[in-house]
């Protein structure tokens, strides 16, 4: 049993600091905490996206460790190359880590990620999921939920915003028989940090998919990022789970969900949703949970 990481025993050293992310940014919190747990011998690979855009602006660098911006499609490939290079040079006890967004993972970076998992490369891959292309101004990605208003999935008389559901990245990754995969939320930070800690000792590829609200893209006040990320899990639209040794496990199985309406009505991106749209979201949720509870609760 590994020791629990809490706010009390977490290091005060900052390895990701002085970046220019928006107030209340969930993604930068996820990166900052991961870096605290991973430590100074970490090599971070970040593709085009918010986190690279706010932290590598010459001459101000926000990573205290080694870090590199990768081509948009190449997080998995560059991180794998870094790991291979370090191994070949005999540089040990290091972590090669990728921090990509939802689009950088589920859309343009999916192929390179698949290649890395297939090879079992020694990398930890983070998908920081804020459910749209935020860096370029809130466009729909493969992880944008149904009914989300983005600048490329407008809500109007004919469309409810995005008409597709979130691509099931966690199970796509698990289907590669990856060594370790987990979902997380910046609303449940101890759970997240435990998963990062766990990934450190995994042999082979790890994947952590963390839901991270974006006040700018979601149309929410910056001070509710954490509570909103918690509510996403509590209302059942997101879930905390792990995949290891070929088995799925639900880490949190709420007896009753909080109302989806409460969650979506706090957010500008869902303001237009009708009762019917919300019912649709609930139906999707229930279907998903039925399957997860049936197949993953052993």
């Amino acid at each position, binding site marked *: 049993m590994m020791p629990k990481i809490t706010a009390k025993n977490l290091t005060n050293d900052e390895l990701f600091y002085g970046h220019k992310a928006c107030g209340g940014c969930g993604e930068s919190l996820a990166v900052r905490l991961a870096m605290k747990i991973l430590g100074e011998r970490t090599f971070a690979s970040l593709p085009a996206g918010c986190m690279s855009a706010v932290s590598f602006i010459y001459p101000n660098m926000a990573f205290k460790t080694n870090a590199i911006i990768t081509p948009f499609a190449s997080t998995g490939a560059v991180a794998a190359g870094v790991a291979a290079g370090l191994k*070949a040079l005999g540089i040990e006890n290091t972590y090669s880590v990728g921090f990509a967004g939802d689009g950088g993972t589920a859309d343009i970076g999916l192929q390179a990620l698949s290649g890395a998992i297939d090879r079992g490369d020694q990398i930890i891959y983070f998908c920081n999921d804020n459910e749209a292309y935020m860096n370029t101004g809130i466009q729909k990605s493969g992880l944008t939920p149904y009914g989300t208003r983005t600048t490329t999935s407008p809500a109007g008389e004919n469309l409810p915003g995005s008409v597709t559901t979130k691509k099931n990245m966690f199970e796509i990754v698990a289907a590669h028989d990856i060594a370790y995969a987990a979902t997380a939320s910046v609303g449940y930070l101890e759970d997240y940090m435990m998963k990062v800690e766990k990934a450190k000792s995994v042999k082979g590829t790890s994947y952590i998919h963390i839901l991270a609200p974006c006040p700018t893209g979601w149309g929410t006040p910056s001070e509710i990022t954490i509570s909103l990320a918690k509510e996403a899990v509590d209302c059942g639209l997101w879930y905390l789970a792990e995949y290891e040794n070929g088995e799925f496990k639900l880490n949190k199985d709420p007896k009753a969900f909080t109302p989806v309406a409460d969650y979506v009505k706090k957010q500008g991106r869902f303001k237009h949703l009708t009762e019917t749209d919300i019912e649709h979201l609930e139906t999707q949720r229930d279907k998903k949970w039925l399957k997860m509870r049936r197949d993953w609760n052993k």
Partner: protein
Amino acid sequence: MARKFISGNDAVAEGVRLARPHVISAYPITPQTIVVERLSDFCEDGSLKAIYMHVESEHSALAAAMGVSSVGARAFTATSSQGLLYMAENLPYASGARMPIVMMNANRALATPWNIYGDQMDSMFLLNAGWIQVYVEDAQEALDMMIQSYKIAEDPRVMTPFMVNLDGFVLTHTYEVVDVPEQELVDAYLPPLKLAENMMSLEAPKSLCITAGNNFNMEFKIKQNEEMNASTAIIAEVDASFAEVFGRKYHGLLEAIACDDAEVILITTGSVAGTSRMIIEEYRNKGHKVGLIKLRYLRPFPTEALAKVLKDAKAVGVVDKNISFGYEGTIFTNVNSAILQSGLTPKVHNFICGLGGRDVTKENIREMFDALLSSAAGDSCEKIHYMNVRCAL
């Protein structure tokens, strides 16, 4: 030293084995495949102690090589044609980050129409990518350039990725006798790569491939250009030191053959240079004052060296196995600029040939020299000639 009867691709693989890269990341494509097959064999049998990464695409092949290079390790990849263009966005990425990656490119036509045979449309597409580009003439030069390329690319004054081009099939699949140098000799000439100061390290952590806005971007690019231009000196230096150790020299940026008193000069790259050497001898024996330039490097472009050789030529012909649609052959454009900048006024002609693997025959080379001799004598002559064309179009 061993003498082996091997193909151009085999020679590349032998050269790479001698250069001892830490990691090979590659994706198969005709006519490059034998290179990666041999390197896989070498990794399996332990004669090359490298990590072989089976990447899922050419895009990832170069991206992974960038990861390898970013920590100061030696990276190798190889590709061709569609594969080169698929990884295209990563080429300026690697050169902007000043990563000394070496890549072999088997020159091949671009679709459509689909065609697996050799021309130089692919690498011409990437002339502006910030990579050094060399074109080799035979299997021996291919092997030797795998060693020279790392020596040049990794020089602290250069730190630029390097593309070694072989004509698809004509060079990649043709067997020749090749001298394979001793490993000890290569190790002494090309020592294991040390972390360069601009790479990531635990001792001095760094952020790489950073953002530079309109306040600094231009200065980065100018520095990159100036250092690429300055690499001409290092290319010459390495060719000379290579000759001292291995006994073979390639004359740096270009090789001038029978150009001293030449009235007409043909400029070629790659395998066409080999065919042209024979015709030079034939025409010289007949008393024609013909010369040949084997243009080895297209980037950095040898403007000064060209001007020096071309200064007394009355007519200059440029062989292009490519077309920049809506204009002319790409090497022709580059040569014309060098000629104009140097204040020379020869007649200039472009010979476009070999597209999609069409043969470039000895007879074609004779036709080129005949056209140049006639132009030099004052006859009017077309600017662009398409050689060995089947039918009127």
